[in-house]
C-alpha cells in the first residue's frame, strides 16, 4: 500500500540508492569521529574494490560466496522457512568437497568440479534435510534446529579435521592440500581465453559463473516451474497450498534440500577454488551474511546478486581500508550493519519522502 504511490522504477533504484547513501553518510560521520578522513576512506574503499581488476577480482570472489549463501536463504524464505543454518550447511559442503577431492583421483578439473559440486550440494542438502524433515513432520521450529545444526556442524568438522583428515604430524587442523588436478581455473584464465586481461592474483574462479548460473536457475525454478509455483504458493499461504493439493511435508523437505545444496555449493568457491584444502571455520560467517544478502535482495535471485556484490564490495573495500589506514577492521562491520539497516529495514524512511516528492510532482 505504502509502495503504491511511487513508480516501480523509482522504488527499485532511487530508494535503495538513497538508503545506501544515508548509510554511508552515517558511516562517514563515524569515521570522522574516530579521527580519520571519511572522504579518503570512501575513496580508498571504492578504488580498492572497483578501481582495478585486482579489486574486482576480490570483490567478485567474496560476492560469489554471498550469492550462494544468499540464494540458500532466499529459496527457503520463498517457502517462509527461515533457514539460519547456511553456515553449517556450507561447512558440511566443504567436507563434501574435501572428500571428493582427496579420496578420488581426478584426471581433469572439470570432472573434479562436477563431482565436487555434487559432493558439496549433497552434503549441504543432507545437513539441511534433518531440520527440514523435523519441521515438516514434527513441527520442530526450523529456526532453532538450524541454529543448533550450525553448532553441531562446527563440532563435527572439528572432529573430522583434527582426527581424520589432518595428515599425520601436521600442526594445522586442516586437510591436506588437494591434488593440483582439482585446482579450478581462475577468472583471469577464463577471461584470458577471450583475450581480456585480468589480475592473476585474486582467487575469483569459475565458481563465480556457477553462482551466476545458480541465480538464473533459482529464478527459473521459482517462477517458471511447477515446483517453484508450489513453493511460492506454500510460502504465501499454507491453507491455500493444501487446498491446491500441495503437500506441505514434501515442499518443506524439497525446499530445505535445495537451500542446503545452495549453501553447500559455497564451498566449491572457498574450499576448492581458493584454499585448496579444508580448514577449520572455512565459512567464516558467510552463512550469516547470506541472511542479510537474501533479505536485502528481497529474496529474489537478482536482488541477491546485487546485494552480494554490495557485500563483496564492503568486504574488499574494507580490507583495503584496514590495510592502508588506521581504521579498525570492525568499522567495516559497522558499515555493513548500517547498509543492512538502512536498505533493509529503514527503507520506508526514504520511501515516504520520495513518495511525497512524486505526489507533489503528480499534483502539478
Amino acid at each position, binding site marked *: 500500500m505504502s509502495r503504491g504511490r511511487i513508480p516501480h522504477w523509482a522504488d527499485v533504484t532511487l530508494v535503495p540508492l538513497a538508503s545506501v547513501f544515508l548509510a554511508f553518510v552515517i558511516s562517514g560521520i563515524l569515521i570522522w569521529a574516530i579521527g580519520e578522513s571519511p572522504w579518503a576512506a570512501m575513496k580508498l574503499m571504492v578504488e580498492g574494490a572497483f578501481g582495478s581488476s585486482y579489486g574486482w577480482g576480490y570483490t567478485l570472489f567474496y560476492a560469489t560466496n554471498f550469492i550462494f549463501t544468499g540464494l540458500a536463504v532466499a529459496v527457503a524464505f520463498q517457502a517462509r522457512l527461515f533457514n539460519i543454518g547456511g553456515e553449517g550447511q556450507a561447512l558440511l559442503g566443504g567436507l563434501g568437497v574435501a572428500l571428493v577431492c582427496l579420496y578420488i583421483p581426478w584426471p581433469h578439473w572439470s570432472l573434479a568440479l562436477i563431482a565436487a559440486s555434487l559432493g558439496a550440494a549433497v552434503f549441504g542438502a543432507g545437513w539441511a534435510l534433518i531440520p527440514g524433515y523435523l519441521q515438516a513432520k514434527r513441527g520442530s521450529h526450523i529456526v532453532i534446529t538450524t541454529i543448533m545444526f550450525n553448532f553441531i556442524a562446527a563440532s563435527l568438522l572439528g572432529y573430522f579435521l583434527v582426527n581424520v583428515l589432518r595428515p599425520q604430524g601436521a600442526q594445522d587442523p586442516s586437510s591436506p592440500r588437494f591434488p593440483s588436478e582439482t585446482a579450478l581455473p581462475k577468472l583471469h584464465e577464463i577471461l584470458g581465453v577471450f583475450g581480456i586481461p585480468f589480475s592473476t592474483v585474486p582467487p575469483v574462479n569459475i565458481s563465480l559463473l556457477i553462482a551466476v548460473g545458480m541465480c538464473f536457475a533459482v529464478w527459473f525454478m521459482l517462477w517458471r516451474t511447477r515446483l517453484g509455483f508450489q513453493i511460492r504458493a506454500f510460502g504465501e499461504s499454507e491453507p491455500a497450498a493444501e487446498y491446491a493439493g500441495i503437500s506441505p511435508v514434501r515442499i518443506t523437505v524439497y525446499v530445505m534440500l535445495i537451500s542446503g545444496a545452495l549453501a553447500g555449493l559455497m564451498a566449491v568457491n572457498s574450499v576448492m577454488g581458493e584454499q585448496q584444502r579444508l580448514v577449520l571455520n572455512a565459512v567464516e560467517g558467510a552463512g550469516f551474511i547470506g541472511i542479510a544478502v537474501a533479505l536485502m535482495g528481497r529474496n529474489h535471485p537478482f536482488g541477491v546478486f546485487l546485494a552480494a556484490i554490495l557485500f563483496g564490495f564492503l568486504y574488499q573495500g574494507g580490507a583495503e581500508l584496514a590495510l592502508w589506514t588506521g581504521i579498525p577492521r570492525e568499522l567495516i562491520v559497522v558499515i*555493513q550493519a548500517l547498509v543492512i539497516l538502512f536498505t533493509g*529495514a529503514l527503507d*520506508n524512511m526514504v520511501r515516504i519522502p520520495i513518495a511525497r516528492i512524486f505526489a507533489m510532482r503528480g499534483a502539478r
Partner: protein
Amino acid sequence: MDFMVLVQVLESTMRLATPLLFACLAGLISERAGVFDIGLEGKMLVAAFMAASIAFVSGNVWIGVAAAVGVSVAMSLMHGLASITFRGNQLISGVAINFLAAGITVVIAQNWFRQGGRTPSLSGDARMARIDLPFAEALRDVPVIGPIYHGILSGHALLVYVALLCVPLTWFMLFRTRFGLRLRAVGENPAAVDTAGVSVVGLRYGAVAICGVLCGLAGAYLSTGLSAGFVKDMTAGRGFIALAAMIFAKWRPWHAMGAVFLFGLLEAVANRFQNIDILGVNLPVQAMQALPYILTVVILAGFVGKAIPPRAGGAAYVKEH
C-alpha cells in the same frame, strides 16, 4: 554422579542460565507484542560493553549497569523505529543490530581504551559482588538443604536473583495486568487493540523498551557479573540460544525459565564432563561440545511439538477493515 558434583553443576547452571533468562524474557515480551527480535545477541553485546566500560571508568558497577540498560534500550528503540514506525522488516533490523553491535563495540572500545576492543579488567566495586543469602552459612552443613541452599542458590551476583524474580514478574505483568492484556492482544491481533482505542504503536514501543532493559541486564551480568570485563563477541551466540529457548518455551515465562535452565544445565554438563567413556568408547571432545545442541534438537523433535508464535508477530501493523 555423586551429590556434590550435582550441586556444583547446578551452581554453574545458575550462572550460565542467568543471561539466557534475561534475554529469553526480553525476546518473549517483545514477540508477545508482535515484534520479532533476533537482535537480542547484539543488544546483549552492546550492553556488556557499556557495563564494563562505564563500570571501569566510574568504578561503580551499578552505574555501569545503568549505562548498559540505557544503551540497550536505545538499540531497542532503533529496532522499534525500523519495525514499528517505518514498518520495516523486523528480521533485517535484528540482523543489522547484531552486526552493528559486533562492530561498534570493538571500534569504540579501541578508541577509548586502546586494548584491541577489550575493556580493562574490572576489579573491586566495578564488579558485581556476590551475595550470600540469609542463613546460608548457618544452613551450610544441614544435609540436602545445605548444599542446595548454600551451594546452589546462595553466593551469586544480585542480577541472578533479579533474573529469577523477573520470571514471576513477567508472568504477572503479562497475565494479570491491563498492560499485559493489551500487550498480548497487540501481538495476536493489533487491529483489535487499535479499534479498542489503544495505541498499537505505543504498546509495541513499550514492549520493545522492556526488551531493551532486560537485554541490558543480560549483557551487564555477562561482563560484570560472570566475567570481569568486556571481550569482543563475548556473547558468543547466547542471544540465539535465548531465542531458541523462547521458542522452546512457546513464549511462556515459566516455561522460559525451564528452557534456559535446561540449556544452562546442558552447557554446564558439557563443561564439566568433556571426556566420557561410554561402553568403553571414549567420546571425543567435540561430541561432548555438540551434545547440548544435539539434545536440544532431540527434545524439540521428540517432546515439544509445534510452537505457534503470536499470530501478528513479525509484521508491522497496517490498518485494514
